[in-house]
């Protein structure tokens, strides 16, 4: 679909008491790209993703996903997106397989199709051995993987992942990565948040940098990186944390005398 962006955000605001979490975001995310939303902890990434996916009501502003308004047209939007939120539970007293069966059927897919897709996803994500274990007994990496499987089950057009690699071991991370790369190669869009710049740099072709509730920069990886040697450097410059030198005070640290 040429011309329609995956996500279009206009004038998005959210305030929690005194704290302004998101301070007027305007953003247009291109379709068919692997998009990274980066920023330090507390930048408002989770709040933004929650509002974009319809899990949190914004104070102001509009959000459109593939051309449909998230709050006025939830039927169109919810069928087209997959979500893996951060800090929210799953139905953990179900086994991995039961969780996928439950999610797929709630999404309105026929039972046989759900079971077929669940088997394939469990295989690809290396969860087949643990499919009958309760999710409450899963490790962090396994939880992220079963959450990803649940988000992919209905083959969404846009996938939103909040910190999908946080606390995940390298093997699981590689598995998740492989699945996501295959998924975007087919023309779908992935939007994911992270504060690990190396990861974003190696995965994404489009980046939005957030700090203190605002978008500081956005565009293709090359545009955002500019002249800096790495995204990490460019990011530190953008959020104004570059060149802070606290090391000289700790002159006793290391060396011979204790």
């Amino acid at each position: 679909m040429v011309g329609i962006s995956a996500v279009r955000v206009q004038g998005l605001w959210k305030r929690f008491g005194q704290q302004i979490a998101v301070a007027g975001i305007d953003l247009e995310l291109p379709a068919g790209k692997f998009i990274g939303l980066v920023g330090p902890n507390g930048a408002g990434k989770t709040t933004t993703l929650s509002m974009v996916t319809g899990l949190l009501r914004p104070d102001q502003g509009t959000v459109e996903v593939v051309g449909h308004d998230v709050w006025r047209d939830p039927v169109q939007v919810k069928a087209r997106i997959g979500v893996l939120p951060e800090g929210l539970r799953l139905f953990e007293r179900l086994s991995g397989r039961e969780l996928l069966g439950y999610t797929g059927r709630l999404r309105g897919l026929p039972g046989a199709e759900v079971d077929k897709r669940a088997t394939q996803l469990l295989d690809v994500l290396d969860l087949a051995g643990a499919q009958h274990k309760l999710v409450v007994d899963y490790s962090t990496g396994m939880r992220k993987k079963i959450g990803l499987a649940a988000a992919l089950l209905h083959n969404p057009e846009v996938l939103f992942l909040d910190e999908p690699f946080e606390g995940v071991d390298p093997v699981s991370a590689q598995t998740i990565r492989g699945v996501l790369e295959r998924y975007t190669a087919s023309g779908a869009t992935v939007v994911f948040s992270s504060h690990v710049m190396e990861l974003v740099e190696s995965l994404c072709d489009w980046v939005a940098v957030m700090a203190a509730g605002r978008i500081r920069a956005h565009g293709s990886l090359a545009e955002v990186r500019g002249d800096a040697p790495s995204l990490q450097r460019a990011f530190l410059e953008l959020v104004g944390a570059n060149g802070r030198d606290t090391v000289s005070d700790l002159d006793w640290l290391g060396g011979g005398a204790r």
Partner: protein
Amino acid sequence: MSAEITPVVVRLKLSLLRNGLRQSGGRRAAYIASAVVTLLFAALQLLGLIALRGHAHVESLIVLLVAVLGLGWAVMPLFFPSGDETLDPTRLVMLPLRPRPLVRALLAASLVGIGPLFTLCLFAGSVIAVAHGAVAWAVGAVGVVLALLVCVALARAVAAANVALLTSRKGRDLAVLSGLVVAVGAQLVNFGAQRLGSAGLAQLDPVADVLRWVPPASAIGAVDSASDGSYGVAAAQLATGVAALVALLAVWARHLTRLMTSPDGSTLQAAETAARERTSTGLSRLLPGGRTGTVMERSLRYVWRDPKTKAAWVTSLAIGLIVPVFNAWQGTGSVWFACFAAGMLGIQMYNQFGQDTSAFWMVAMTISGTRDAYAELRARALALLVITLPYATLVTVLTTAMLGDWPKLPGALGLSFALLGAMLATGAWTSARFPYSIPQEGYKNVAPGQTGLAWISIFGGLVAAALLCSPVIALAVWLNASADGDRWAWLLLPVGAGYGAAVTVLGLRLAAPRTARRLPEILSAVSKG
């Protein structure tokens, strides 16, 4: 390290206590209130025990009291593995500490708190109740300290021995059921006290004859022996107490050493535990298709697998049965009491989304309109009815059978069904309008700061349910009072059942659009646990 660590650990415990209280005003108020109540209770016990001084069988009573208290100390760590961080060996694992001084320091720290103070009051009262003569008083002074140390060491040894269980998921699930244990324990104590009240303290003597040799009761039993002049027996009883203390400390020290030198149990455990095959139980084949069957299946699974939901259901099922049946048994009941079962079980419809915790987002992502919300709520109500309908019927029939009042059965059933319908309707509506979080750990059922919301939800709902039922209640009263009412009493069954069904559908219809509109608000309300 040569510095003495006992004062350090005791100070740490005091700071943790102080900082815990500084966190919030509500917490401080709750702590002070519980301290005042506990101390008042302790003072009353003390007065009671002093008043019993000289009573014929008082020594049996105090031995039993001390033994029960000792039992309490032993099981407490299993059900309330609370946040006493000074006693958590995994926090100390990185420090260069030897087991012996550590055990001494932790034992001293364990003596700080309301629990030990309460125990001390009770033991002191016990000594006052039975001590006669200087030797007995001296034995009493030793006995109180010894008994207290045995209690504390017992709790610590049990906790250290079960640390793998307590830090695992199964242990945390067990802790959630602690409310049930307290409720059942209170019933047993109540029952025992009533028996004693009617039959006298002499009944206790045979039990006490055994318990007076079991630590920690033996330490207080020694006081009674010394009062009687049996100094040899007293010495032997004290020696039993000392031996128990030494043994418990040794067990504790051994487990502590092992805990601090072996890897954390949680990492080992993740590797093994072969997954049990959870094949389809055939449940899904009996349920309808689509959203309805899917949601019903998940709800019913949660009744069994989720400790919080399970505890709530067991409580409802037990109380719903006990109240009408026990009243009927004692001959004080009436068939109408059987409606209590329907009411208790209908409560499970309340705060449906709070029972989901923040996993509600998975539901919210699949509700895109009133129709979805209606299907979701209806399926949850149906899942409830699968258990509730047969159970309420069973309780009603059982109560009627015990009272032999068969002509009233159709009426009681009809009223039960009407009440159940009203509870489902109000439950669905309040679930959408006043959702609140249920903390997943511990025994609390409302997240801090949402108590008001929970009260509105439950009590407002109950009043509304009673009002909704009033036409059926009025009909029942009228049929009961009128001259040839008995001839038409059967009418209450179809009328009540039909009314209940209609009210349920109406409630779900009203709740559905509200649920669909308020999804983000519900999610944030239920995510605080």
